[in-house]
């Protein structure tokens, strides 16, 4: 099995063989790790879930690496896999009834950077409360800086749908800020 489509190997400027030090997939995936982890953290709201989601996305991407024809599109391709993994997890949260065996904390620890970010003010809490599809659009647009068309590719929805999700989510976030006590949650 070829590790990536031939075009990918060629793009890397190497004659990739088994004796190579780094395989193309690892190289491309390694470049996206930090970004992917942050994206997953913002979508899922805690570091543990983000870590699991990225690990799962890497496995999925590895399994499907033969589908990638253009290494330039690796980021969009991996984003799409990762966003799907995160959305599945968010939806599952509302479906699965989880009963703890151990007296584990219900919320992420105080040191969790993503939880801290999201729980810091009313807008963050409102973001954390958005449905999965709306949260994904907000994060991809305002954090990743992607256009609506680029987001549409990643979430597998038409640009018009992305726009409406963005507008609805933005309205919720704006309202949360306006409803917050003055001077407390506003930055």
């Amino acid at each position: 099995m070829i590790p990536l489509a031939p075009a990918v190997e060629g793009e890397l400027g190497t004659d990739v063989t088994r004796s190579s030090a780094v395989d193309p997939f690892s190289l491309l995936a390694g470049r996206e790790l930090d970004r992917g982890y942050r994206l997953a953290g913002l979508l899922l709201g805690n570091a543990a879930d983000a870590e699991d989601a990225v690990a799962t996305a890497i496995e999925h991407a590895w399994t499907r690496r033969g589908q990638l024809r253009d290494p330039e599109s690796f980021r969009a391709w991996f984003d799409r896999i990762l966003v799907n993994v995160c959305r599945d997890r968010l939806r599952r949260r509302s479906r699965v009834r989880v009963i703890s065996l151990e007296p584990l904390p219900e919320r992420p620890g105080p040191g969790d950077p993503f939880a801290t970010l999201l729980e810091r003010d009313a807008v963050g809490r409102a973001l954390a409360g958005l449905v999965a599809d709306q949260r994904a659009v907000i994060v991809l647009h305002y954090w990743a800086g992607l256009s609506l068309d680029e987001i549409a590719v990643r979430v597998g929805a038409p640009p018009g749908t992305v726009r409406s999700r963005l507008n609805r989510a933005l309205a919720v976030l704006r309202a949360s800020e306006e409803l917050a006590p003055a001077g407390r949650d506003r930055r």
Partner: protein
Amino acid sequence: MTDDFERRLADRLAEGLPEAPASLQAKVADMQDKWYREPEVAWWRRLVPVLAPVAVVIAVAVGLVQLGVLGSGTGSPGPSPSPVGTPVPTTFDPTQVVSDGATFSITYEAGNVVVRETGTTGTRVLVSTSAPASLFASPPTSSSVTFYNLACGTSGSADERELVYGYVVGFDRRGGLAYSGPPADGGIADNGLMLFVLRSVADEGERASVLRHGSTPFDPDTVILGWTYEVPAAGSQGVTVLPSGCRQG
């Protein structure tokens, strides 16, 4: 047009985000290692994923034609449907699995699968989730044994969290992954560890399935922790519990 609120939103989302943990770097390194170990595959084997769905469609179409659902003609009517399975018991006696001093039992009560744990402090319900009665409508044949396996393991993350946090109930039928009940894909409970209740059927001399972690598609390389049961050959007594293992793909 970006307004002040949107600019502040973008700024605050970018604040203080951490780098990926070392475990994810290790994950990528695992992929590289896998790449080295992965054998080259002949060109014709790469066609299998392409041709397999076509073969399935053809097989289904042929089957429907034979049943008289598709096609025209004057053939005789197809066979009548199979009789409905045996009545669903309100409770059944499951295989009990002991782990870490606790005994788990699974019963089917009024449309719900109920998982109970009996430990030193007593018995408590861990899971009560609805499940279709059809799952229990096909009792094993005389030459097979049905198991209700409990197993737990990590969610596949590189760091191994040890505590059991949540439970997921799924059912594995022989030869397939017909998980049922939430979540439908046999997924993972939040935050790491999970417990699967797997129903599997094995014939004499065969082994019932072990727990495997994997969402869709099913990934046999991510076997984690579980118990494997070996059905005794005809004439033998007892069920062999094979050593459990823990490995990650």
